[in-house]
């Protein structure tokens, strides 16, 4: 019993695999041996930590994320009692290894946590990944990253996510599991929750409260962090320009090859958004990996690292 699914390309073959956390606290991997349009999975194998199964005690809730920005997929795992743990990948893109060479650590501990389900994303858009944790009681808590993007650091007290009327966001019926994804294609991450009764509830993010929607005419050029990042289907890049100018926004791979030009035109002052669907200039899907968004206007230039994860 117990099944907490998560998809990620865990072996770097450009197809998403299925990971499922279970009641016993272990994580099962089902490798995708099918095609991009029609996934087929091989029988499950337990994810190992060293020579034995990775085991967080009970009710493992895994999230796959490059926690330390080294290009490898790490695991952030919530458990039954009190903890969110980090397991750093010490292997390769194609063969992840989790073992004592980089011991697992507790990212967050609270004795009020029970069946915690983590999510990792830069919700406050300060360029650093933050932590969300949902609880069996139905609350979803936000933890601001007080460290760096490479070395995240969190501390209590927890802050409940809020509704637009400032009440706490609570998943009725409790037993909350959750994930953030852009559900209505407005470029903002929404909260998709599951509850004790087996129902799924979507809480759409209120656009008016998004930090970057409050901007008056910007004082300077600004390339904001894209969202989501890492991304699977598409990501939205937002940027600000102080006056009408010719803007170039181009995606490059890490070797400097141009993948796709997203913008190359005169644009008006203000906030702009552009979506990248992961396709190259031939309209073919790019492979998983790290890419650079380069925004250029005259002599002004800025870059952002983005990660395509399938």
């Amino acid at each position, binding site marked *: 019993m117990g099944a907490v699914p998560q998809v990620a390309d865990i072996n770097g073959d450009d197809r998403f695999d299925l990971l499922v956390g279970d009641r016993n606290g272990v994580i099962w991997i089902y490798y995708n041996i099918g095609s991009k349009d029609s996934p087929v999975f091989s029988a499950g194998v337990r994810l190992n930590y060293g020579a034995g199964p990775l085991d967080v005690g009970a009710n493992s809730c895994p999230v796959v994320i490059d926690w330390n920005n080294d290009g490898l997929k790490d695991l952030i795992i919530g458990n039954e009692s009190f903890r969110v743990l980090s397991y750093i990948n010490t292997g390769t893109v194609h063969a992840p290894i989790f073992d004592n060479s980089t011991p697992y650590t507790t990212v967050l501990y609270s004795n009020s946590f029970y069946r915690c389900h983590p999510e990792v994303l830069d919700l406050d858009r300060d360029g650093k990944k933050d932590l969300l944790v949902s609880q069996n009681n139905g609350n979803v808590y936000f933890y601001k990253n007080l460290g760096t993007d490479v070395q995240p650091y969190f501390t209590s007290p927890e802050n409940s996510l809020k509704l637009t009327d400032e009440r706490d966001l609570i998943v009725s019926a409790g037993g909350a599991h959750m994930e953030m994804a852009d559900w209505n294609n407005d470029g903002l991450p929404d909260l998709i929750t599951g509850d004790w*009764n087996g129902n799924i*509830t979507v809480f759409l993010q209120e656009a008016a409260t998004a930090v970057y929607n409050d901007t008056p005419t910007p004082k300077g050029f600004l390339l904001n962090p894209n969202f989501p990042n890492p991304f*699977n289907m598409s990501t939205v890049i937002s940027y600000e320009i102080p006056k009408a100018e010719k803007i170039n926004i181009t995606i490059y791979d890490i070797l400097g090859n141009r993948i796709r030009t997203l913008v190359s035109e005169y644009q008006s002052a203000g906030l702009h958004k552009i979506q990248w669907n992961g396709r190259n200039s031939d309209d073919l899907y790019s492979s998983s990996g790290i890419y650079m968004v380069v925004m250029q206007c005259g002599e002004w230039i800025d870059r952002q690292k983005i990660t395509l994860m399938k």
Partner: protein
Amino acid sequence: MGKVVMYVYLICAVFQQMMVLSQDVPRFKAGNRLKFSNGADLTPGSTNYTASPCVVDWNNDGKQDLLVGYFYHGSVYLYLNTGTVGNPVFEDGNYQLVQAGGAAVQVGYS
């Protein structure tokens, strides 16, 4: 001295965290329970217990689909989006158990 610095740092960090929700974090609209197109709750049955959702483009059609793990079953169901990216639609009865190695995925006590 080191301890004093550490405490000051810790107090600042806690204060920073307490101030977080004043402005930085977006708010959310009231929740909408997902339904099939016929209005029934999006579940595969009546005894599901805790559901754990995961959004994925399963069939590479550019639209988000939904995987849901259920505590009671220990299994994972797939709901394919037949609507659009901005307005997902899940047809009633259109769900399936996710298979692996020729059998339904099943995890839990063993």
